[in-house]
């Protein structure tokens, strides 16, 4: 796990490019504290940079950028979980390896199968691979979009990095995307393919960008994607396969030469991951959890029950209000792209780092794949309302009720309207008022991006899954997980998002996958033998962090808000009166904070 950056520039001298890439790496140093490296192809005005967080082969042999056969060079961020199997296959085909890293396996894989090799890689990754003979540079991102990769291309120039902030040293790319505040206020994050910079965008997941130096051309190819089907229709068979796939996934995610742990929220998904991890790595497994003094928010009871069953090395942290206040400005600084969430991940990653852990397993993905969100129940009604006359949806725009207010979003066709209705923050009317803009312009901006295909022909619950997987998880959860963990030099691993698990979940018939009285019943059925019943048969707590209370008592927030616009101050008062959700206030805090 590392941070990467790089640049090809036809007109800049090589030492200038090196200087820029070096600075880009420095700006991402938090994500790669163990080592730094640059590869330069002088004749080609190309520099690849890397900040390394060493997890597999901690020796200097794992140094990056890494080369293979003096032809292929890579700067790589990620983990490959099937690299030992691939390595064996490649050895049989005559490849020789000089170290124990997964990085070298990717290089050999490309040397053997070229772009067809990308689909063989199972894991989370983003890398840039330079073929010095053909003079082609490939940027590649994993199929689930777990690892980030941003790029900007223009005539004679290609720049890339793991974080948007890393583009700061590139003068030509400093033009801001003026519309990002609109997206932040609507979504609570900035959705792909939008970014805060006008000419920087994320590489689409499961895709590779090929830059041909000889003719200065860029093209995007897709090497993998996930689609829903109804192939697995037998419940027993589905359960057997889920068990097998998740066990295999967790086992492969435990591969590391550095200490690792498991986040324990007290919920089902992390409980499953922790229980399966304990099965395979009992002696050296660390579990981590956060709890609060206020029992209304604390999940300590459930964490304790699980811990008693697992008997691992457990680390529990009491997160106090004081620590929250002390850390809040740093949390805002830690964000790369603006996001209204990720605070919890920031704290737990900080604790993981303080325990000397370098990688932590998390339960992200379980809700999206197996129906853990309310949207799975609400989507059918939302679709029905969407078919009604648009004037009805517009009627509630001035309403104080969040639900009525957001109904305006159902005027938008397709899944985007449904997503914003179910998960959106401010309505276009409110956004316009906060930003001093016309409402119709807000609509235009929101309609323009992201452009999403019509998925109305697939099963309703699979539509909810598609939406949570491709929008909420992609743009919010995975980005927060990545940025907020890497800021502490910790890697978050997500076994639910292993290729085999996703492919399986996507092909289970909805009638089997989402069946049952409890949320994620199919997962419960699979793992109730290894999980205490209190974990799966418990009341839903919703969001279990006391952030609303703490934000209300924050002097830092108060100060920020006092110097904000009149409308924002009104919203702050609304928040203090309990009439605005804390995550909505976060948008306003971020907007103000970034203006300063």
């Amino acid at each position, binding site marked *: 796990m590392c941070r990467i950056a790089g640049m090809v520039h036809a007109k800049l001298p090589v030492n200038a490019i090196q200087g820029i890439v070096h600075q880009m790496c420095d700006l991402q140093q938090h994500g790669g504290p163990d080592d730094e490296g640059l590869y330069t192809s002088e004749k080609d005005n190309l520099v690849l940079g890397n900040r390394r967080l060493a997890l597999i082969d901690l020796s200097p042999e794992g140094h990056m950028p890494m080369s293979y056969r003096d032809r292929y060079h890579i700067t790589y961020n990620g983990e490959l979980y099937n690299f030992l199997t691939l390595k064996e296959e490649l050895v049989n085909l005559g490849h020789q390896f000089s170290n124990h890293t997964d990085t070298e396996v990717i290089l050999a894989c490309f040397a053997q*199968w070229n*772009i*067809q090799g990308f*689909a063989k890689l199972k894991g989370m990754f983003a890398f840039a691979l330079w073929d010095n003979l053909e003079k082609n540079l490939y940027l590649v991102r994993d199929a689930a979009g777990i690892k980030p990769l941003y790029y900007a291309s223009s005539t004679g120039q290609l720049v890339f990095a793991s974080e948007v902030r890393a583009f700061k040293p590139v003068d030509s790319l400093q033009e801001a995307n003026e519309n990002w505040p609109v997206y932040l206020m609507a979504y609570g994050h900035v959705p792909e*393919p939008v970014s805060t910079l006008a000419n920087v965008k994320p590489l*689409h997941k499961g*895709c590779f960008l*090929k830059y041909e130096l000889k003719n200065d051309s860029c*093209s*995007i*190819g*897709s090497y993998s*994607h*996930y*689609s*829903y*089907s*109804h*192939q697995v229709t037998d419940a027993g068979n589905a359960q057997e396969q889920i068990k097998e796939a998740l066990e295999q996934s967790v086992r492969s995610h435990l591969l590391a030469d550095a200490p690792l742990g498991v986040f324990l929220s007290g919920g089902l998904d992390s409980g499953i991951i922790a229980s399966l991890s304990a099965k395979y790595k009992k002696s050296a497994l660390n579990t981590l959890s956060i709890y609060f003094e206020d029992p209304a928010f604390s999940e300590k009871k459930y964490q304790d029950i699980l811990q008693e069953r697992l008997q691992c090395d457990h680390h529990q942290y009491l997160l106090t209000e004081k620590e929250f206040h002390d850390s809040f400005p740093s949390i805002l600084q830690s964000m790369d792209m603006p996001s209204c969430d990720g605070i919890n991940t920031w704290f737990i990653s900080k604790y993981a780092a303080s325990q000397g852990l370098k990688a932590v397993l998390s339960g992200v993905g379980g809700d999206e794949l197996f129906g853990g969100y309310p949207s799975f129940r609400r989507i059918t009604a939302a679709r029905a309302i969407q078919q009604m006359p648009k004037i009805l949806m517009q009627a509630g725009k001035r309403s104080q009720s969040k639900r009525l207010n957001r109904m305006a979003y159902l005027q938008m066709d397709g899944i985007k309207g449904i997503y914003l209705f179910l998960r959106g923050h401010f309505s276009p009317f409110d956004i316009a008022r906060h930003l001093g803009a016309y409402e119709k312009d807000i609509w235009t901006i929101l309609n323009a*991006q*992201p*452009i999403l*295909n*019509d*998925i109305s*022909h*697939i099963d309703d619950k699979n539509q909810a899954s*598609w939406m949570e997987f491709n929008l909420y998880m992609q743009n919010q959860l995975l980005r927060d997980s990545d940025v907020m963990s890497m800021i502490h030099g910790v890697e978050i691993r997500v076994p639910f998002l292993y290729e085999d698990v996703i*492919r399986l979940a996507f*092909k289970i018939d909805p009638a089997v996958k989402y069946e049952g009285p409890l949320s994620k019943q199919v997962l419960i059925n699979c793992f109730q033998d290894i999980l205490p019943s209190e974990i799966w048969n418990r009341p839903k707590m919703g969001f279990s962090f006391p952030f609303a209370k703490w934000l209300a008592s924050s002097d830092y927030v108060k100060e920020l808000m006092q110097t904000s616009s009149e409308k924002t101050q009104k919203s702050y008062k609304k928040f203090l009166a309990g009439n605005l959700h804390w995550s909505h206030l976060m948008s306003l805090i971020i907007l103000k904070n970034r203006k300063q």
Partner: protein
Amino acid sequence: MPNNILFLTLKVFAATGGIEKVCRVAGKAFYESSISNNSLVQIYSMYDKHADADENRYFPSEIFHGFGMKKMKFIIEAIQQGKKSNTVILSHINLIMVGWLIKKISPSTRIMLFAHGIEVWESLSKRKKMMLGCCDKIIAVSQYTSQKLQDLHGIPAKKCSVLNNCLDPYLPFAPAVTGKCDLRNKYGYTQEDIILFTLTRLASKERYKGYDKVLQAMVALKHTQPNLKYLLAGSYDALEKSYLDELIKKLGLEDSVTIAGFIKEEDLVDHFSIANIYVMPSMKEGFGIVFIEAMYYGLPVIAGNKDGSVDALCNGELGILVDPQDIKAIEEAIGEMLLHGEQYKPDQKILMEHFSYKNYKIKLEKLIA
């Protein structure tokens, strides 16, 4: 402004012919363009069921709608979606009515048509010919097809563009030597045997692929090359099989010819790999994807000079073009390749320049831009 595309097809996955191959690859190209350009693409298939697209590698099945032979539903939804699209691409002339209706309702929508081969080489009904007028552009898979469109149907040259078919980006690499030996054993070939290979549907109703001419040419060739074998593969109908059996017997080639029948997709590479020459002096090839596939696996190729095959062989730059009805010419071409095999190995660089998926996508993007 985004260029939202609706790609209308007859079949994409439910059959394995050349047109379906084009649809799969073009679908992938449209999907990738939609990512690059931040636009939408929808692929409708009249005959496929939705599940036919399950786990395909070309594009996510969410952008695919299989109507499972519900023609009216297909037409109605295609028109509704077509009105909202900037560009509608018809994969086959049999969809021209849908394109024509979309154009009538939404004149600003661009209509493009893929023209492959024999389906547009014949005279068309008056109605179809009139409807062809709705097309803003016709994309012909070969120069030959393009010329036919102009000569037969009076399509102005400026409306016709040629986009040769390409190699499937998922074509597997040539197998290791072990696989080759197994297959040689299966067919009873020795290491010394020289294998001519043809892969095509063997249909009594469309006997234009030229394999019967190859059989006749074999008779003379056997005198100088007794190890010459002919591997004729592809699904066949009973009538054609008995015709071929009879012909082989009549020519005395029973020991030299294998009719292999249908070959599974995953076994094709091994078949290309054991062959020495690919020969198919066809008379009615729209393009002949099989030629470029054979050349991708390094086989010297002989094709007919009267149809779209000319494009597939780059006017003879990549192989030998013969008069498909001239048995002597076929015999001489094979003889020449037997003598100077290495010389006729196709130049991979030229092959990829003309027929790589990457270049196909670039050309297609330009055409629909």
